[in-house]
Every structure is written in C-alpha cells, then in structure tokens.
C-alpha cells in the first residue's frame, strides 16, 4: 500500500463536545496507543457546547491515519480533520524571558523589532518578549536570542485553520 514511511508532523483539528474529561479521553487514547503528542491546544469554540482541540503529532502517514480513525471513534468527537500545512494557516504563540544588561539591551530590542515581536515587560535584569508566528519563525527568533541567555520559554503549541 502506498504509505509514506517518513516521520512528519501533522496537525489534527478535533471538534469535540464540551463534556467532562473529553481532553483526558483524547490524550489517554494517544498514550495507550503509543502515539506521540508534540503539542496540544484546546479551547471553546464559537459554540460554547464545543471545543476545538489542535494536536500536533509526529509519525508517518499510516500512524496519522490510525490516530484520525481512533480519535473519530470517541463518542464525544464530532469531527477530526488532518490539516495539510500548505492549505492551512498555522500559528503558535511564544513568551520568552531573556537576561538583560545595559550592554545588550539595545541588541535585544533590535531583534524583537526585526520580528515585529512585542516587548511585554522590562526589568533591570530581564525582559519578556512575545511573538506569534509559524514554528519556523519562532524557532529562528529563539535562536537569535540564545547567545543572550534565555531564562524561560513558553510556547502554546500550534493552532491551525484551513484557508
């Protein structure tokens, strides 16, 4: 059968009824079937009875098809879509705290400006920057700050929407 065996990242968009434990049902399914979750984002949708859960998984085609089918079987799940990165807008959000000194302050602000990142807070010895973008942009942003001693990173994981 024509499967690709290469490990890739896939974004699953799951529409679930907002029942107690629905997130546990999904994440439990992943763990017991040995699928890897790279990130998971869940929140209410425009309809308060439903949640949209975005899961980034790694695996090959075969695994992602299994994940899709197994998740679809859960009673509280309305719809599962495997998003193709080319046909979807994929964004994630980053909060990063970087060590700051008088010597490097200007450099830090300059990098933030290049990426149109927001500086949310400045302390004498640190600052917090925020950036929204796709994974590649966020990764290169972090890389540029790395030489300046990154203190803490928070990433939301990917959100994605079909174009």
């Amino acid at each position: 059968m024509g499967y690709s065996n290469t490990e890739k990242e896939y974004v699953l968009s799951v529409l679930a009824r907002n029942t107690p434990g629905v997130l546990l049902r999904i994440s439990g399914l992943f763990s017991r079937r040995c699928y890897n979750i790279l990130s998971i984002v869940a929140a209410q949708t425009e309809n308060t009875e439903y949640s949209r859960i975005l899961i980034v998984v790694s695996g090959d085609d075969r695994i992602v098809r299994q994940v899709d089918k197994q998740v679809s079987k859960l009673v509280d799940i309305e719809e599962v879509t495997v998003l193709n990165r080319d046909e979807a807008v994929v964004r994630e959000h980053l909060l990063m705290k970087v060590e700051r000194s008088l010597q490097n302050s200007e450099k830090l602000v300059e990098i933030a400006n290049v990426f149109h990142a927001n500086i949310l807070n400045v302390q004498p010895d640190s600052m917090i920057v925020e950036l929204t973008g796709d994974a590649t942009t966020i990764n290169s942003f972090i890389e540029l700050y790395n030489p300046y001693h990154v203190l803490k990173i928070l990433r939301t994981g990917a959100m994605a929407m079909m174009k």
Partner: protein
Amino acid sequence: MLLTGAQIIMECLLEQGVDTVFGYPGGSVLYIYDALYEYKNRINHIRTAHEQGAAHAADGYARSSGKTGVCIATSGPGATNLVTGIATAYMDSIPMVAITGNVSSNLLGLDSFQEVDITGITMPVTKHNYLVKQIENLADTLRRAFQIAGSGRKGPVLVDIPKDVTAQKYEFTPLREPLPMPKGDFPFPERFDQAVELIQKSQRPFIYSGGGVIAAEAFDELKDFAGRIDAPVSSSLMCQGGYDQTDRRYIGMLGMHGTNTSALAIKNCDLLIAIGTRFSDRVLCNANLFAQHCPIIQIEIDTAEFNKNIDVDLKMKGDAKEILAHLNELISPVSHAEWMNQIEGWNAEFPLVQEAAEPEEVTPQDVIETLDRLTDSEAIIVTEVGQHQMWAAQFYKFRTPRHFVSSGGLGTMGFGLGAAMGAQIANPEKRVINIAGDGGFHMNCNELSTAAQYNIPVIELIFNNSVLGMVRQWQKLFYDNRFSQTDLDRNTNFELLAQAFGIKAMTISVKSDIEPVLKQALALQEPVLINCHIDKDFNVLPMVPAGASVEDPILEM
C-alpha cells in the same frame, strides 16, 4: 411520574427490555437495591459472590443471547472489581452496561470512603462512560448508554451514579421504545464491483471469519456466501459456530493454534476474504509473513481496524450481514472443485488427534467429543483461558452462533464460571458447560456458591492436570523445561470443595469413566462439578511459535 433516581434506573432498564441484572450491593447503591426490592417481580437480580463474577455473568449473558448484559456494583472496590470483566467485554466487543454507584456528589473528589474515579479508571476499557451528576440527565444517559453499547462495533459502557442522584426525585417520562440504533455505513457500489471482480478472478478463495460474523448475526449470509464462491471457511476463536463446523467447507481455526489445513489453505489460496475480524496477533502470528502473496478483502464494521495490524487490498466497511447479503445478490455461484478437493484431502490427512499413552488414559479430545455427542452439538460451551480453551474450540462441533463463550482478546482466567451462569440464565432451556482448567477454576471458584444458591444448573468440567498447562507448554518449548511456578500441586480436593458449596461432584480418572459420568451430570438439573484428571503433558497442537509464519505450525512436540 415523579420517581427517585433509583426508580428511574429501574424504569430505564425495563424500557430496554432488561429482565435480569447481575450485581452486588453496597453503601453507594443502597437506593438502587431498595428499588430492585420494589421491582423484584420485573427485574431478576442475581447476587454473585464477587463483583468480577457479576461482570463476567453479564458478559456471558450477552454473548449467549445477543442482548446487552447489565451488571451493578457499589463504589470503590465494588467498581474496581468489575474492571477485569469490563475489559474482557471490551476486547471482544460485547455489549454490556455496567452501573456503578459512587459517593454523594458533595463527597466526590475528597478521597471519601469507598470513593474511586471509576470513569477515569475504565476510560481505556469502555466504549464510553458517564458520570451522572444531575438527575435530569439520568434517564437519557442510561438510554444513550444502551444505544452506544449495542450499536456499531458493540462494547461495554459504564454509568457511574453518585448516591444522592439515586435518592433525588425527578419527573420521569417513559420512552415507548429504546432509542433507534444509528444507521451504519455501507460500502460504495464500486467497492462491491471490485470485490466481485476479485472473487470472480479467484481460483482458490479462502474465507476467514471472525467474531463480527456472530455480532452481526450473519450466519445464514456467510453460509450462502461460502457456497456461492465455493470456498473453504476457517474461523478465529471468536467465530466458533459462526459457521456450521460439521459442514465440509469448515476447516477449523486459523492462527496460533489453527489447523494444518487452515495453514495450508492460507499458503495456497489466491484470495483471502476476512469477515468481521480485526486480524488479532494470535491469528496473524508474524504479520509480515501473513498472506503476502494474495489480495485480501476485509469486511469490517470498525474503520480503525483497516490497515491497523495488516494492510488489506479492499476495505468494505459496514455490517457483515448487510454486506454479505448484498454480495450474495451480486455473485452467481461458481465451482472450485479442484481447490475444494485439495482442501478435503488436507482435512483427511491432518485431523486433530490426541494420542492416549495407554488404552485407559483420558484425553481431553475424548472427553470433549463425548460431550459433543451426548449434547448433539447443541450445548453452550464456556471456557476459562488456556489449553482447555483451545481444546474446547478444536474438538466441540459448534453448529450455530452464541454457543461458544470465551474470553478471546483479553484472555481472562477466571472468566468461565461467572460467564457460564450468565449464559445459563439467558438460555434456561440449554445445557451450559464451563470447560475449565484447574488454574482458572481456582481463580473464581467462589462463584460455585452462586450457582448453588440460585440452582443454576451449569456443569463445571475441570480438566485437572495440576499445572498451568499453556504457560508450561511455552516453558517446554522456549524455556528449556524450566517450569517456573507452573506446577500447581495444590492438592485442593475439588470434590470436597464442591460439596462444601452444596454442589454434587463427580470424578473422571480413566477413559471408561468419561461417558457414564458425563451422562450422569447431564441428567441432573442442578449445578455439578466434574473433576477430570488428565496428564499434564498434553499439548495444544498445532502451534505456531512466536515470530513464525502462520503457514508453518509445529505439528508435534
């Protein structure tokens, strides 16, 4: 009408046509048991010795009747004791509704006495589960639980109900009939065209049937189909009786303990048609070496079973009965005389035989075949798990569905006695025999007390070899005869034990005991235990060793 939560549970059970439940009382289900007292003329409650027995009984009831089995347990240990039974039903797709009490809502989450998060615990082993916190949701939740349990790929559903919800009152509106089962999928016409083409091209088609044939009640359709395409039929452990085993097309099980004819058939066939099966690892053996040379058609109700354990060439998703019925309309009968002659030749060449070392030695084959003859192949045979389970499947001639009740997927020792009682209660006119090993019998022999108390006339037939035979067989083959912990040597006197429970006991020690003892037991209308001594070195053969191809079973060891 204004009813308590507990009364609403009773009304919902009646709505679903439930007349028998299995359970065990306790603190959190006091209101439910109070309602059972009130409804005792309409709902028969069987109190088992242990909640696990109740879960297995509900399972055996479901397997042997096709109806949804119901069990009830209290919170905490009562609920956790159900878990093995629920997991057993889950692995074999058996419809069951488990109702558990929980502590009152205001005590939930506080590590209260006998509190346990049973919905959390059973999430991986139920099709779905519910915690009902509001009485206004109780009736609809129970209705939905039955609908989920009995539709699509069937399975157990657990409904956890805090004690206060069973005490509160709420207006109950009866439903005239149960919620309709959602309509399942049916393959597109192109898939049928492809299937017909593959079948017409095939000179040596081979049918492998699974438990889905029984779940879908597709017995007649399968028989018609096999005749039309003139093919041999093998089955998984779960499909015993899904095809008439006295028919010349039937060639026995396929897989780890399949017949050599099945192994030869899969090796030589040019088309494999798998019906209602998930290609368990016990059938595939080495998945990379399974049916590599021929196309595979899989008829299956659960999409997630396609390309899970093995890749197939043509997927037909839906109910096996409907799909087979439609295929039968599309296919005109063909003949594969040469292929069928070859199959019958193999069948004659490789019969399943257990040799007795001396003329008076009891062989399991002799016992089971005698039982088969004395019961006209019409008894319900229940099993524990191990060698005796395989022998039961190999040597009893199952002719119709729902006559073989066995834990196939989970392989639960201790399943049989509870399940046999459930099967007997669902089928009062039938003879029910639990074929057990002494290991499995020891696990839940407490349920003899239940059989005695309610006079449930099951026959507990123990193949007593004083060892854990199946594990020991593996130790013989792969662990250099190092019999670690498999020699039981408990010296339990089973006859005395049975008598202590108030049950008649009989003994088979030599070949000439077999027929008179079985006859005597079958003549009784009460529970009876038969202690049948067998040699500990009988093996289950053929056997495909781990890692080998299903085509290469060991025939002797």
